[in-house]
């Protein structure tokens, strides 16, 4: 899953700022889990046809191969759908950021810098400026690394309360304080008269509904909209408070860090994802944008008792047999059921001996009660940090480029193509992948190329009205 480690409020220059340590992995762990789940469901399905677990090896082999082929086909078929499902929110976020940058001048005014980037860029020489920006980027990245490691440590030692508190405080900050500032600036730009009471009412409603949607339950579209809005707000903060060269350097370094953190075996984000997989939990919903609601309903469990036993972190039904993470060996004598699950089941239904005969009998039943999720509903997840950094790139391009809209458009297309490629790799590798590196690289290349090379060319062409 993509994850974004949480932020910690900091005070600086009389304004609350936040630190976003981290990046975002792309993809669903859940996707791969679900795929595995689907595989196992299909295997269970195929079993009545091939008549139970005890069948000769070649049947199982055939079933597994068929699974893989069907799987690949489904993957590619729905791959395009996933791409579109992610294009829309990323585009929306970028559109909001660019629209704000173009209209509200607050976000392009220099009003100081974050505490994490203490070195100024208004220096006399180019060398000094370069040095300062390198130092700024280094400090920011180390803060991010520290925060990520802190988050992973907290998660590993099950300090869920601390993490939740952290997340709640930061989303409170974003939803109330930053949106208040944003609203104020928009009103100033359009010269709209407004009183405090109305503003208080609006911000209160916006914030409370946002908190409920993000941290608890809410309509999917509303939750997605809120996540997009807070990403846009955060991106705007970054655009405002990061000086030029620092911003570009940070973008470049953070995509390298993302690559390292997600793919290296000891990388913090990878450990986070693996721990979550082991415990069969989802990562924090407040940090991930998910394109669908996921229900993992198991055929055997309908009673609400199961919910009491489920860990309080899970936000949806999860039954132990739904995960085959630990017990890949279907040949094991206990039929693949872990001890834990058996105890749980025994507590609920009463002790049942799961012998090969009973298993065969159950599997011989028609599988009409199978409630695997509709493959249409399999969604893909992207971390909020990805949204934020994409929007920072496009926003900075629109704010400071001499080519203006051409550059913005070029960066936008570059990022989307990078996202496409990342999703393609995801479909091939089927594990959590970093979403930043490819897109940000394309984006940076296109930004600098368009700004410096294409811009003069297009200018001259437009001047003479030549068309290419």
């Amino acid at each position, binding site marked *: 899953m993509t994850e974004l480690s949480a932020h910690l409020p900091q005070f600086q220059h009389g304004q609350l700022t936040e630190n976003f340590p981290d990046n975002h992995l792309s993809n669903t762990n859940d996707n791969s889990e679900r795929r595995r789940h689907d595989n196992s469901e299909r295997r269970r399905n195929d079993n009545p046809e091939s008549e139970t677990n005890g069948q000769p090896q070649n049947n199982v082999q055939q079933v597994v191969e068929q699974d893989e082929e069907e799987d690949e086909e489904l993957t590619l078929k729905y791959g395009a759908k996933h791409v579109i499902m992610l294009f829309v929110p990323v585009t929306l976020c970028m559109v909001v950021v660019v629209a704000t940058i173009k209209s509200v001048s607050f976000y392009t005014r220099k009003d100081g810098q974050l505490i994490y980037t203490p070195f100024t860029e208004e220096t006399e020489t180019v060398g000094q400026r370069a040095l300062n920006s390198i130092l700024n980027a280094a400090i920011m990245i180390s803060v991010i690394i520290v925060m990520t490691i802190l988050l992973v440590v907290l998660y590993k030692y099950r300090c869920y309360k601390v993490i939740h508190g952290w997340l709640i405080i930061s989303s409170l900050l974003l939803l109330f304080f930053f949106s208040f500032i944003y609203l104020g600036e928009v009103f100033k730009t359009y010269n709209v008269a407004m009183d405090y009471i109305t503003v208080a009412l609006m911000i209160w409603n916006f914030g409370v509904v946002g908190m409920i949607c993000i941290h608890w339950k809410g309509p999917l579209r509303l939750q997605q909209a809120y996540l997009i809005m807070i990403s846009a707000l955060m991106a705007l903060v970054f655009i405002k408070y990061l000086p030029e060269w620092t911003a570009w350097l940070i973008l470049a370094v953070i995509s390298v860090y993302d690559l390292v953190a997600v793919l290296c075996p000891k990388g913090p984000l990878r450990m986070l994802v693996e721990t979550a997989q082991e415990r069969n939990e989802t990562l924090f919903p407040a940090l991930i944008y998910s394109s669908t609601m996921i229900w993992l309903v198991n055929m055997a469990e309908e009673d609400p008792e199961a919910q009491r036993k489920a860990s309080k972190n899970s936000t949806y039904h999860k039954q132990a047999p739904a995960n085959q993470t630990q017990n890949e060996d279907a040949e094991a004598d206990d039929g693949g059921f872990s001890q834990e699950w058996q105890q749980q089941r025994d507590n609920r239904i009463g002790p049942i001996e799961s012998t090969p005969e009973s298993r065969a009998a159950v599997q011989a039943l028609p599988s009409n009660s199978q409630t695997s999720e509709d493959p249409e509903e399999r969604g893909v997840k992207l971390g909020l940090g990805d949204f934020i950094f994409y929007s920072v790139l496009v926003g900075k391009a629109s704010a400071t480029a001499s*080519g203006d809209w051409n550059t913005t458009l070029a960066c936008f297309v570059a990022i989307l193509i990078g996202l496409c490629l990342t999703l393609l790799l995801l479909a091939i590798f089927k594990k959590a992948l970093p979403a930043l590196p490819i897109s940000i690289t394309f984006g940076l290349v296109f930004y600098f190329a368009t700004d410096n090379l294409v811009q*003069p060319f297009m200018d001259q062409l437009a001047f003479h009205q030549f068309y290419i």
Partner: protein
Amino acid sequence: AFFWLVSLLLSSLIWFIAVKASDPRDEPLQKGLLIFGVMFSVLLQEAFRFLYYKLLRKAIEGLVALSEDGCSPISIQQMAYVAGVGFGLMSGAFSMINLLADALGPGTVGIHGDSQLYFLTSAFMTMVLIFLHTFWAILFFHGCEHRRWWEIMVVVVMHLAVSGSTFCNPLYVGSLVPSYLLMAIAAAWAYLLSGGSAQNLRRFLLCKS
């Protein structure tokens, strides 16, 4: 769109290098360099169209291999159309969007003696180019599919002709009229290649089933 963008990038790189290597005060030379840049860009665009065709071909083979009934869900003609639209939109966007942004601001068109129809003609020219890109892609892909190299050559020559005709701007009659004529020809040709006919057209227009 991405492919068009990359071709634009490369061509402007070439032009930029040429400009930097030459004398900036020499007006005719600059104009000559610009013309050279335009021609080179057209050729690069067509080259990238060809590369894109190759990529799509591979994609179709992959889809066919994975599909259940041996045919891909998207035909090569549909892909040609989409490719053309992508190229056209990107080229149109890059040509027009700064113009549009400036048009929102204050100013008078042609106050220094230039043509007053600048915005209008730019808009029409962009529109014709977008359409043309779409049709060219259909023709191009068809030519590649059926190995008719002359079709591809015609597309390239047409593109060069249209770009070349813009060199006589601001004499707009020299650029807009030929371009629209060429667009009509390309439209009819693409329509016929995609399986349309005069009968189909009549049936469509008269809303017969």
